[in-house]
């Protein structure tokens, strides 16, 4: 997906606005699962790592740094969702 810079800025603004509006009424009980879940989502930076990995060229150092980024982001995503699932499981059994 490519877009002009201004359009991208508009999308950024809209996404931030939606995020702000959706979360502003969240009950206290869900603060931890929300934080843990959104924390997992921030691992989406994995996409950037996947996109640049084939393009790092010959440098072994840069390649290793991208691999570290991939490891970190994957840990963040998988671990984050898994923990969120565990937390939500505790709330679910009350229903």
């Amino acid at each position, binding site marked *: 997906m490519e877009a002009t810079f201004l359009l991208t800025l508009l999308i950024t603004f809209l996404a931030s606005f939606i995020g702000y509006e959706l979360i502003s009424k969240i009950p206290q*009980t869900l603060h931890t699962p929300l934080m843990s879940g959104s924390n997992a989502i*921030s691992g989406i930076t994995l996409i950037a790592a996947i996109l640049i990995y084939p393009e790092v060229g010959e440098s072994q150092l840069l390649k290793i740094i991208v691999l570290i980024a991939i490891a970190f982001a994957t840990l963040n995503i998988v671990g984050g969702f898994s923990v969120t699932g565990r937390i939500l499981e505790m709330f679910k059994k009350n229903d």
Partner: protein
Amino acid sequence: MIEIILLVSAILFIFALKLFGRPSTAHRANTFAMLAMALAVFSAFNFDFSKYDSAFYITIVVSGLLGVLISKRVQMTQMPELVGLFNGFGGGASGAIAYVELSGNSLPISDVFVAIFSMVIGIFTFSGSLVAVMKLRGKLNNFNKKLADIFSVFLPAIILIPVVLEMDDLLIEFIILVSLIGGVIRVAVIGGADMPVVIAFLNSLSGIAAMSAGFIVNSIILIVAGALVGASGIILTLLMCTAMNRTLLDVLKGGFGGTAINNEYEKDPTSTSPEDVAIQLSYAESVVIVPGYGMAVAQAQAAVKELTNTLKDKNIEVKFAIHPVAGRMPGHMNVLLAEVDIDYEDMFTLEDINSEFSSTDVVMVLGANDVVNPLARTDEDSPIYGMPILDVDLAKQVIVIKRSMSPGYAGIANPLFINDNAKMLFTDAKEGLENIIKSFELV
């Protein structure tokens, strides 16, 4: 095709965030978010999986398995540390990607700005989160505040470096070093009880770092998801700040609390015994329990559940009053109570329960201090003046389970403890509750 997958992914992310807002739908939110993530990651390959070597796939599989392993084995009481740790990894990943983009390609100047921004925020989040984890484990004391203040002026300044200087390797390394140290000492000056703010703030930063990485690699889905996380993190951060009547800047400045300012009392508190508490409780019709960080430290949640059951069997109404910043992360107490199957319908927020205290027979304060200190309402010179508190002093009787008269985080005396309607049970929260439960069998 890829565009459609990405569109679906973005919509799923937005719905996931919406579903996170209600207890009955929150578990579906996680599934939605996972699905959105899977689609987004899949689309990044652009149907060409052969471009990637075995080192790439091995890294993904091994770190994925490691993530599952860590998250399954960690105990619920260590949840704040774990969230902090994963958050640091996310920030570190964005920082590393920005570094590679900076040193590998010749980027246009606007991208250089974004890349430096992403790198600074990402690395700051990384080192800051690791320090927060150490703080949460109690392994780090407060750091010299002056040094941290001098250093923090640097951080915004280095983002502007490309205006005056041509980027080279040495300069980039210098920026990395400053961001690393910046994250360490900024978080190091902030006291443990302010961690709910810090954790939420770092969470927001990791989203912003991911968002700016999206600008560098031109990925809309990365920008959208990063912005969603950044915005929701900011909401939680501000909520936590409001709950303490302090500004974000004030919290980040650090140096608050940790030392006793004034802990003198006009008279001695009345102490009580587990037997007396059991008798007091058995004559009550309504009981409100106020959990604090002391409950988490003593791991008393199972005992809380047992006492709740005992009271409910006697037809005594039991409610929980939870202050927004009780514990070490947003919603910490709610999670600990949910872990032992306490119904979230019984957990009340400050706004919902404050009007009920005057008609409550017995309030039990479990290892909470500043959040029930009436000086926040009355003493204009107090450091916590204006902070919304749970008005437990208005209840008919108050029992405070606490190991000693030592002050809380704010370092001030709590006149609640010497109130006429209050009695102190000097013990650890878990031991105290267990003894009360034992005494019930004799009542």
